[in-house]
């Protein structure tokens, strides 16, 4: 069975290569059908392997197995979380391609295969990253998925905004990737190994942590946190999401950012969690501080956006903070909760982006103020938008609510309050948009501030504005929302997820399967009610919610200037080092 693991990467790459070669002779429907077949086939394979992933599979590619405990080969790990992320990435790629089916207008004419080929390469990169069992391939797949993401973000290259957003995304993420590689070099110097578990063993054999361990930890975590858009590494994300085509936004927010968080979890669990790595208390401090910061900044930025895609992007930043808090408490329950939360969030956030794409293609704008009351005729989209917003707030029985409830119980205390507050603020902002845009509730918002991205004057992605919404564009968000619902209600699903996570994460420690508790349901309902109340207040009494001055200075930090973002990345790396330092000096 483990012989099939490399296919998850090889099949999409082969499909992409064939599409590029045959691009000139293929008509558009043929190219898209071929891409969907390849992507769907890979998704199916990932699910089959996932169902057989207990006990976890390991594949030394090309038969380069370790000799006397020393390895130089490429290793793929097929365990629950890895294959789960690969399956999620594949399914979401398929959804994004069906969404763009036939209506999405890609610029390079007579190259019908180029956009689907890039999507397949993106899928391959994400699958490879999820399955990588050695650090160097983690870096290679990190870079492959990043490079393809830059190209996809810059698809509509004739728009001035697009090239700027794609460039900042590319520079910041690439710098993060090189930081990862520096860290990998240091770990190799210490242990002579590249496979994750072997490095962990090598560090433990060497003794307690020292300056080199700390430096490697900071560098690797910097790169992974850039990918997962933790504050202060997050600045690229709203810019990239504001300019990327809608199907690409679905993938960036739905799964790529979460893969960064997954990378942090994976690398800590296999490399740094032993006695030779970074002590638990210090890692907990790092993740909780960054998680809280990320949740607060993301939620506040989200509330004050008027560009709907940026608003959803900032909500992703806030949710990244919640994921980091969830894995940061270092309990099996926290890991289970985050795994479920990521699955539910992927469906809900991708569905919300898909609905926003309909607005863009129909009205040529993603500006909350310009669209006020204009989308009254789009009833099905309005319903899905409201359901998506409520699911984001944690309305039971959606998967987001189950994941959020389990995570909240795992973190406990004031962090639970923070999690509720962050979801209320982000979901409240989405509900406010829905109320204004689809129902025309509340007064027309007043004129604009000068320092913001508005979202007016966007080009529809369909070439010209669509007069009726194609079925694929409404079916995809509906299916995604149904999937997010299924994560929460499908009997036994939460148990399967928990089993897969605990088998590879907490050393086989078996905990009771996550399930709905009265406490969790009440918290979910309370979040939903509070979010609705906040949105209602924003619609009826907008004067009460004018932006205080400090939020303006927070928004000024999001300057769109690549040099500023690089400086923040360095600040973040220093912060990481300072937070993890006590564990190294203390021993």
């Amino acid at each position: 069975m483990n012989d099939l693991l490399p296919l998850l990467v090889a099949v999409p790459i082969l499909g992409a290569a064939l599409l590029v070669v045959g691009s000139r002779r293929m008509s558009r429907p043929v190219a898209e059908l071929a891409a969907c077949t390849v992507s769907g086939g890979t998704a199916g394979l990932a699910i089959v392997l996932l169902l057989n992933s207990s006990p976890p599979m390991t594949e030394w590619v090309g038969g380069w197995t370790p000799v006397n405990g020393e390895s130089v080969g490429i290793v793929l790990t097929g365990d629950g979380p890895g294959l789960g992320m690969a399956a999620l990435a594949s399914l979401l790629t398929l959804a994004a391609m069906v969404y763009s089916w036939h209506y999405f207008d890609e610029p390079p004419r007579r190259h019908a295969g180029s956009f689907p080929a890039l999507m397949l390469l993106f899928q391959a990169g994400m699958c490879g990253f999820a399955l990588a069992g050695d650090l160097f391939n983690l870096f290679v797949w990190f870079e492959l998925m990043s490079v393809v993401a830059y190209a996809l973000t810059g698809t509509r290259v004739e728009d001035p905004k697009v090239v700027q957003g794609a460039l900042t995304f590319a520079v910041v993420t690439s710098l993060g990737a090189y930081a990862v590689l520096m860290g990998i070099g240091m770990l190799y110097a210490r242990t002579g190994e590249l496979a994750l578990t072997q490095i962990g063993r090598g560090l433990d054999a060497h003794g307690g942590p020292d300056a080199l361990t700390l430096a490697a930890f900071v560098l690797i975590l910097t790169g992974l946190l850039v990918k997962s858009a933790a504050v202060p590494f997050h600045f690229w994300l709203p810019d990239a999401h504001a300019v990327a085509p809608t199907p690409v936004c679905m993938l960036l927010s739905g799964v790529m950012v979460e893969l960064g968080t997954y990378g942090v979890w994976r690398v800590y669990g296999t490399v740094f969690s032993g006695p030779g790595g970074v002590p638990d208390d210090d890692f907990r401090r790092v993740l909780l501080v960054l998680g809280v910061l990320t949740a607060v900044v993301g939620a506040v930025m989200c509330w004050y956006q008027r560009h709907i895609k940026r608003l959803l992007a900032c909500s992703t930043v806030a949710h990244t903070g919640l994921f980091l808090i969830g894995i940061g408490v270092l309990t099996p329950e926290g890991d289970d909760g985050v795994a479920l939360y990521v699955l539910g969030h992927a469906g809900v956030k991708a569905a919300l982006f898909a609905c926003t794409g309909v607005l863009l293609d129909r009205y040529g704008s993603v500006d909350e103020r310009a669209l006020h009351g204009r989308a009254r005729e789009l009833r099905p989209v309005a319903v899905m938008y409201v359901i998506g917003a409520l699911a984001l707030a944690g309305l039971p029985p959606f998967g987001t609510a189950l994941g959020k409830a389990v995570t909240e119980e795992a973190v406990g205390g004031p962090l639970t309050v923070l999690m509720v507050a962050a979801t209320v603020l982000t979901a409240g902002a989405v509900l406010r948009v829905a109320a204004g845009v689809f129902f025309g509730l509340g007064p027309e918002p007043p004129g604009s501030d000068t320092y913001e991205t508005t979202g007016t004057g966007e080009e529809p992605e369909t070439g010209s504005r669509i007069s009726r919404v194609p079925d694929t564009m409404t079916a995809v968000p509906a299916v995604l929302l149904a999937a997010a619902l299924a994560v929460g209600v499908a009997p036994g699903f939460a148990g399967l997820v928990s089993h897969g996570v605990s088998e590879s994460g907490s050393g086989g420690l078996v905990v009771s399967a996550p399930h709905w508790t009265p406490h969790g349901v009440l918290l979910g309902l309370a979040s939903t009610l509070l979010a609705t109340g906040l949105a209602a207040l924003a619609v009826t009494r907008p004067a009460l919610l004018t932006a205080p001055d400090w939020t303006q200075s927070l928004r000024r930090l999001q300057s769109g200037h690549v040099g500023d973002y690089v400086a923040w990345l360095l600040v973040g790396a220093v912060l990481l080092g300072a937070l993890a330092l006590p564990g190294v000096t203390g021993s």
Partner: protein
Amino acid sequence: MTAVMHVLPYLVAAWVFLAGCYGLATSRNLIHAVGCLSVCQAATYVLLLGVGYRKDATAPVFSDIRPGSRPVVDPVVQALTLTDVVVGATVTALLLALVVQIAKRHGTVDPDELSELRG
């Protein structure tokens, strides 16, 4: 003296990386910024090759020497560096293509004058 020589490659790598970061943060020209990113990446080459260095060792090519007859430098890091070079070429090519587009659409390559995205 040997201690200094032992640490020197790592100090050089750190210095080159930070110099690249400084250049990126203060850049007034996007082509220069892309170059600075390549400088950061050059630091990873230095580090990797420094890690693989063995004293009095030769290249890990066994066509004319018998395996085990004399020390060779670590071929793994050389393979990593080669992969890294390929990755870097891809990134630089893509970034320069984006800079060309920025020059066309904005009429400038000064990051201070790009103001489409903010807030």
